[in-house]
């Protein structure tokens, strides 16, 4: 978890408040979570982000992000 600094960017990540040290791309966020790209999907402010756009999609202050994966279910 990033240290909160004056410049930190407050977002909501999977329903919890989360601080980023700087603006990062969705790709950088996924990498920071140490999950395989082929195992996850990301929603930014209720819209799915296509994987092809991860590099170019920058996360801004106030953004609401969901990162999901598959778990056991019936």
């Amino acid at each position, binding site marked *: 978890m990033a240290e909160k600094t004056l410049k930190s960017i407050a977002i909501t990540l*999977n329903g919890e408040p989360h601080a980023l040290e700087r603006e990062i791309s969705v790709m950088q966020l996924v990498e920071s*979570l*140490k999950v395989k790209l082929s195992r996850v999907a990301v929603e930014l402010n209720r819209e799915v982000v296509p994987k092809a756009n991860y590099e170019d999609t920058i996360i801004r202050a106030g953004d609401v992000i969901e990162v*999901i*994966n*598959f778990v056991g*279910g019936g």
Partner: protein
Amino acid sequence: MEDTPFELGGKPFRSRLIVGTGKYKDFAETKNAIEMSGAEIVTVAVRRVNITDRNKENLLDFVDPRRYQILPNTAGCYTADEAIRTCRLAREVGVGEMVKLEVIGDQATLFPDVAATIEAAKVLVKEGFKVMPYITDDPVTCLKLQEIGCIAVMPLAAPIGSGLGIRNPFNLAIIIEQAKVPVIVDAGVGTASDAAEAMELGCDGVLMNTAIAGAKDPIAMARAMNLAVEAGRIAYLAGRIERRLYASASSPLTGLIG
């Protein structure tokens, strides 16, 4: 015996058993049970990545999407909107267009919200999803879902996880007779005979999770279900005898010793 292939969304499958991945002790047991079940289609749930425990194993490392058709579900969704969002996210993971749509209407019974399921199905079909809705065993609703363009209908046999078996074989029989898409019994199966019964009625497939994962020996139950679905299917194709009130002797009535 010759059987027509079990086709879903234009893709042929050998096994008519679809299994879930919930409620297992660990991923290794999940993997073994699926293997033993012979299933080729496997349901999964869509949930938030655990942010705090980043080294957690991933289900797909045990259930290889190249080997199995992954069928993401919308379990836990109570509105059409939640279910649609969940499907869109699931598709972006990259395992295809097939989704098991469930919009729950009641927490205690987990019965579907029929109106919300139809609403979500309409949107998802338009967006190119191959929608397989979990639904009440109601022939009218199943027809509606078929007309919308769902690739299968999945009436429940009994409440999810209840193990009560086929509660209304007569409704199922009507649904099967009317359906032009595969009918898959989803939910309520408790043991092998329930699965066989569904197949004997003429269902195209059976979907189950708890009946296997919750058994004392899930691996053995997975095998039992594999055999039951196959046995039920063959019995259906073979054509059972008519039920009759009185006996019909199997041994010749002539040539008896006197």
